[in-house]
């Protein structure tokens, strides 16, 4: 059967766009190898000093650990909240579901800068009450990140629930299973993949969150993106190039592994 394929003009234009998309990611590689202290192209000799400074400078390590801690906490919170909410929607199909889901998705559609001002208001308001939870604390940042990631987690879990056959739940119900048993022993094992994906996406979104983080941290809770931001705004530090190369390599590896797995699943 003949198929409609893109012609030469389409292919050339698409190749130009592809080049545009990859260019800035490739550009950081030579910069990361410069022996200079400043952001320049290496002329002649190459050096790994900026990679070494990532390990030796405690600021980078501290902020990486902090970002991991915040990411794990906020991912756990947003996955649990999204899961219970989605189970409620799917199992009971209450009235006003559309409105309630719409409300939950708000942080995803409201411009991030407005969410940032909102969370800044919240955290500065509660700062007076406690010292460990509020503006510029890691718990405050983790909670704020949960607000931002919970809509994405909810969408993923609702999508995987929508592909689940209702009859298995009806059967469990008919056999006398309680709500708890239906949720934990019938429904959740069948949407494992969706739950894990939601947790991973929440972690990744928190790990790279900068728009909101800028508004709610100052000197204590310096996450990795916040530290990169400081390095980018003031005097550009080539260590950021080294870090960017590492992050890009990790992304490419994860995507490659994922595409191999999905291909294997597709052709058993």
């Amino acid at each position: 059967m003949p198929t409609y394929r893109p012609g030469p003009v389409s292919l050339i234009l698409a190749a130009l766009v592809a080049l545009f998309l990859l260019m800035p990611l490739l550009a950081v590689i030579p910069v990361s190898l410069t022996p200079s202290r400043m952001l320049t192209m290496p002329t002649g000799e190459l050096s790994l000093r900026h990679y070494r400074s990532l390990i030796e400078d405690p600021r980078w390590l501290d902020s990486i650990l902090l970002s991991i801690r915040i990411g794990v906490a906020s991912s756990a919170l947003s996955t649990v909240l999204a899961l219970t909410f989605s189970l409620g929607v799917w199992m009971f199909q209450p009235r006003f579901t559309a409105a309630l889901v719409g409300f939950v998705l708000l942080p995803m559609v409201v411009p991030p800068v407005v969410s940032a001002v909102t969370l800044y208001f919240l955290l500065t308001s509660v700062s007076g009450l406690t010292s460990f939870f509020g503006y510029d604390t890691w718990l405050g940042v983790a909670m704020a990140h949960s607000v931002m990631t919970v809509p994405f987690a909810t969408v993923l879990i609702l999508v995987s629930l929508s592909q689940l056959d209702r009859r298995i739940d009806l059967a469990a119900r008919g056999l006398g299973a309680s709500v708890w048993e239906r949720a934990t022993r019938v429904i959740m094992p069948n949407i494992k993949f969706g739950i894990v994906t939601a947790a991973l996406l929440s972690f990744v979104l928190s790990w790279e969150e900068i728009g909101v983080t800028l508004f709610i941290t100052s000197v204590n809770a310096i996450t990795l993106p916040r530290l990169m931001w400081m390095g980018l705004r003031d005097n550009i530090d080539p260590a950021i190039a080294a870090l960017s190369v590492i992050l890009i390599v990790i992304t490419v590896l994860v995507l490659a592994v994922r595409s191999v797995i999905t291909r294997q699943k597709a052709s058993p």
Partner: protein
Amino acid sequence: MRGTLSDRSGAALLMAPLLIFLVLAYAWPFLGVVKWSFTLPTPGLGQYHALLTDDLVQSVFIRTLRIAAIVTLVSVTAAYAITVVWVRGSTVQRVLAEFCILVPFWISVLTRAFGWVALLSNRGLINTWLQSIGFISEPLTLVRNEFGVIVGMSHFLIPFAVFPLASAMRSLDERVLLAARGLGSSRMRTFWTVFVPMTRSGIIGSAMITFVFSLGFFVTPAILGGGRSVMIAELIYLRIFQSPDWGLGAAISVVLVVFVGALMALLFRYVKPKQLV
């Protein structure tokens, strides 16, 4: 009767934690921001009046709309070109296009903005190269201006613009295209008079998403604009942290939300949400 009662309480019990969390951590503080816009520094509509009369605020609003419009045009056009190959290309072409779309999509906005700094700055890749081949003697100013902002934002938004277009192109009936070709229409003519009109809903959805995203953009303009081409989001940040004027920052936020909400309402009048995914 008892069944429905326990159903209702079960649903409430499961759905309540997230709803309570978002009311306390999002809805309530948003109302607080709205309150700021009416009460700081003095109660009244002063900040909204300032929005309409302040020259700086006005010029930032106009610049934001202009940049958002240009970025939308650039991103949707570029996304269209690569999506055609991602959806309709041969297997190898598809894999390559998918790689070029998804890798940038998953890389953080900071890394991508930094990549553009490395390319475009005075001692960056492009200027170094152009000088070494003797094409220019003085470095070109490619960042810390509107050009850098537009390039960086378009780069960020192209993958987002791809998804609605891809869904429109996938649902298109291939036989119509083959019929047009079979009846003697040239490649160009088939593309412009059959293919493009049939993906209209994707183009609208893609343009709306790009435009709405560009309005609230913060990180890329702040890094690539270098404080010289300030957009709305950066103005809010400056009003809150540099010249503490929380009332004005809050008022701009409220206006931005209302504006984006109106645009979304307009979008959903023309395109069903399902057509966007």
